[in-house]
């Protein structure tokens, strides 16, 4: 868990942004340090948990995995990743769109993948 600080403290009292909540299966990766706004790297815009997320996500992980590895509640990680997204510090890949009304193409892709892995 996150130590002595309760979740609402970490997120500055916010429980979400105006955007729809990030899906638990959304994928996150940190923008390479060289491409970051210099203010972000040095300033105090980012709290310790933001920085832990950036350090963890040098490659691609889901919101759920970030929460598990950092031992933070998913709801907290959602807010923090949203902050980082707003700041341009992470890239977020939303869930694969279930194209149109019926996701036949996506389901076919899942099925083919599973059959190959079985």
């Amino acid at each position: 868990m996150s130590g002595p600080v309760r979740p609402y403290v970490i997120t500055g009292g916010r429980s979400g942004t105006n955007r729809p909540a990030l899906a638990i299966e959304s994928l996150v990766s940190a923008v390479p340090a060289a491409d970051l706004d210099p203010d972000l790297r040095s300033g105090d815009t980012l709290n310790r948990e933001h920085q832990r997320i950036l350090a963890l996500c040098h490659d691609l992980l889901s919101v759920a995995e970030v929460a598990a590895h950092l031992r933070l509640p998913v709801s907290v990680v959602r807010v923090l990743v949203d902050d980082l997204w707003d700041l341009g510090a992470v890239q977020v890949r939303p869930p694969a769109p279930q194209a149109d009304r019926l996701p036949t193409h996506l389901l076919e892709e899942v099925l083919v993948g599973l059959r190959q892995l079985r």
Partner: protein
Amino acid sequence: MASASSADTTGTAGTEGDAPSYLPATVQGAVKILVTGPFGVGKTTLVGALSEIAPLRTEEVMTSAGVGVDDLTGRPDKTTTTVALDFGRITLNPQLALYLFGTPGQQRFWPLWEDLSRGALGAIALVDTRRLDESFDVLGQLEEQRIPFAVAVNVFPDTPEHPEDDLRSALDLLPEVPILRCDARDRQAAYDVLIDFVDHLLSTAVLELQR
């Protein structure tokens, strides 16, 4: 802070010290399927049999009262419940990953469901036929939330053989809900259940398109 755990099994791989297993950078997005059922039915076991990574555990904080009601007073002492969610992952191809979320199937966890089920391809409801009544709530919830699902009987050594029709009527399942069987510990059997379920979702979707 009230705390309740939905952990099905002890001895789930902890995350402490485990190096993260990253997805290939080529993955463009993920999909998810829920694995649900009553306490102790074997959700984490099934997730573990399918997952390419040791199942991870994460926590979701659930505010038990006043869901959707603004907290005007800003009081931090609302009653919250911490729910443990075990999940796993399958990289299906270089572009697409599948996450499997073990989702507690007891009524007190319904507040979590809206969020967890949004965008899910569907759910596999694990059933223990020695205690069918414990699955009634979750099956009702799946129907009410209109989440496409299949029933998978987790076959334990002393599980009696039930004819499918008996099971279907005992669980009051619609004819289109598949009833599958597996030993949730067995990777091949678990894969067969997942493949049969996705195949069912696809046939249903194709039928809908033709309508």
